[in-house]
C-alpha cells in the first residue's frame, strides 16, 4: 500500500536538455540532466513550468519515463497540434536549453521495486509512459516480480518504445508485453484490431492471483472503462491504481 511519505517542501529545479530521442512522428523523448535530483519511484511525475519573456507562465505535469538513474530523467512528450506546451517541448526546446521542473510527485501511482507482488500494467496511448518507467525499473533493479504490460495504441505509427518492447517481450524474463492496436495493426500481427474490450481484457489479463497490483493509465475515458471492466471481472478496486491524463490525454 503506497504511503504518504513525509518528504519536505518541493522546489523548482533547473534541468538541462542533454539529448533527444524521437519515438514516433508526434512523440519525442527528452533526456534531461537535473542537478539536485533526489531520485524517484517509477509512476511518479514531475511538473514543468514554462515562462515567456513577458512573465506569462504555465505549468503541466508529465510522467517520468525512465528508471531511476542518478540525476538523469527522461520524459516522453506527445505533441498535440493545438497544445500550448507540448509543441514547445516536442519541437522547440533544444539541447542545452534549461527547463524548470519540480518533483518527483505522487506516492499513490508509484511502484516500489522491492515489492514482490505480481504487477499488471494497462496503458492507453501516452498512458504507457509511467508504466514504461515501471517496466524499466523492474528490469534494472533485478526484481523478479512477474510483470505484464497491456498497451493499447492506435497503430504501429503511434506505438511508443517499439524496439525496446520487442526486446523485452523476446527476453522472456518475467515481463510480458501485449500490444493492442485499436485502428490498424501491422502486417504479421496475430491478434484482432479494435478496442481493448471486456473479452480481450479477460483473455490478456489472464487469471489474476489474489494480491496482483494493477496500474491503469491513459486518457480519462480509457481509464474509466478499464477500471470498471477490471472490477466487474472480479478485481478488488483497492488493487487498482489509476492515473488519468484528462480528456485529451495531455497537452
Amino acid at each position, binding site marked *: 500500500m503506497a504511503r504518504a511519505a513525509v518528504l519536505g517542501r518541493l522546489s523548482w529545479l533547473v534541468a538541462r536538455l542533454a539529448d533527444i530521442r524521437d519515438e514516433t512522428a508526434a512523440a519525442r523523448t527528452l533526456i534531461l540532466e537535473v542537478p539536485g535530483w533526489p531520485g524517484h519511484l517509477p509512476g511518479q511525475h514531475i511538473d514543468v513550468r514554462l515562462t*515567456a519573456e513577458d512573465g*506569462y507562465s504555465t505549468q503541466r505535469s508529465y510522467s517520468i519515463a525512465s528508471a531511476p538513474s542518478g540525476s538523469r530523467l527522461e520524459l516522453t512528450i506527445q505533441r498535440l497540434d493545438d497544445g500550448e506546451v507540448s509543441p514547445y517541448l516536442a519541437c522547440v526546446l533544444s539541447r542545452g*536549453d534549461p527547463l524548470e521542473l519540480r518533483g518527483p510527485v505522487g506516492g499513490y501511482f508509484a511502484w516500489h521495486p522491492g515489492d514482490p507482488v505480481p504487477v499488471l500494467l494497462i496503458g492507453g496511448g501516452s498512458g504507457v509512459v509511467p508504466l514504461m518507467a515501471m517496466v524499466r525499473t523492474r528490469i534494472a533493479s533485478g526484481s523478479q516480480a512477474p510483470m505484464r504490460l497491456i498497451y493499447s495504441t492506435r497503430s504501429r505509427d503511434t506505438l511508443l518504445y517499439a524496439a525496446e518492447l520487442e526486446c523485452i517481450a523476446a527476453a522472456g524474463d518475467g515481463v510480458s508485453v501485449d500490444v493492442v492496436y485499436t485502428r490498424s495493426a501491422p502486417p504479421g500481427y496475430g491478434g484482432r484490431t479494435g478496442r481493448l474490450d471486456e473479452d480481450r481484457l479477460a483473455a490478456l489479463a489472464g487469471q489474476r492471483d489474489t494480491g496482483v497490483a494493477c496500474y491503469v493509465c491513459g486518457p480519462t475515458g480509457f481509464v474509466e472503462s478499464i477500471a470498471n471492466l477490471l472490477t466487474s471481472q472480479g478485481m478488488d478496486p483497492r488493487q487498482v491504481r489509476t492515473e488519468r491524463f484528462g480528456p485529451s490525454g495531455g497537452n
Partner: protein
Amino acid sequence: MGIVSPGFSGRRRSKANLPPGQYLVHDFPVLSAGPTPRAGLDGWEFRITTEAGRVHAWDWAAFRELPAEDITVDLHCVTKWSKLGTSWRGVSMDTLMDGVETSAGFALARAVGDYTANLPLADLLDGKAWIAFRYDGADLEPEHGGPARLLVPHLYLWKSAKWVRGVELLDHDEPGFWESLGYHNYGDPWREQRYWGD
C-alpha cells in the same frame, strides 16, 4: 518568476486595451469548478427569492416568453484572460426583477450543484446583468453554462454563474463559492480586485 524558457511564447495573447494584468484571447476557455450539468430543459427553473421568503419562479417556457435582448460585451476572467466583443442574447435582470418587492441590498446567485456567487443587488440592475441563453448566434452550450447562465460583464467572470437556477435577495452579504476562499468579495477587473485585500 521562473527562469525564461528560450523560444516559448504560449498561446497568442496581447495586452490591448484591457484591465490591468489581463491578456487577450481569441478562443473561449472553458472553466468549471465541477462537472458539467447536462439536465434537459424539463426541470429547468429560475427563481428569485426575496429576503421575506417570497418566490418568483419561471420554467423554461415562461422564461423564454419574457422580452430578451442582444448584447455585445467584454469578458474578463480572474485567471487573466479577456475576450472582447462577445455576443449574447438574454433576459435582463431588470425584466426579471420587475414586480419583485424587495429592500435587500445583497444577492447570491445559485447554480446547479454547489456553485454560488455573491454581489450587491445594485450590480444586477440598471442594465448591468442578464440571464443569457444564447452565445455567438447559437443556443448556449453546456460547457459555457447552457441552457442559461448569469452574465455580469462589469465584474470578473466567476461572478457570472454558469447553469444558474436562481438569485436569492438577502439583507446580509453571503460570500459565494470562491469569495469564501480568497477571491475578492466584489471583483472589479478595472481595479484588479482578484483576491481578499486587493
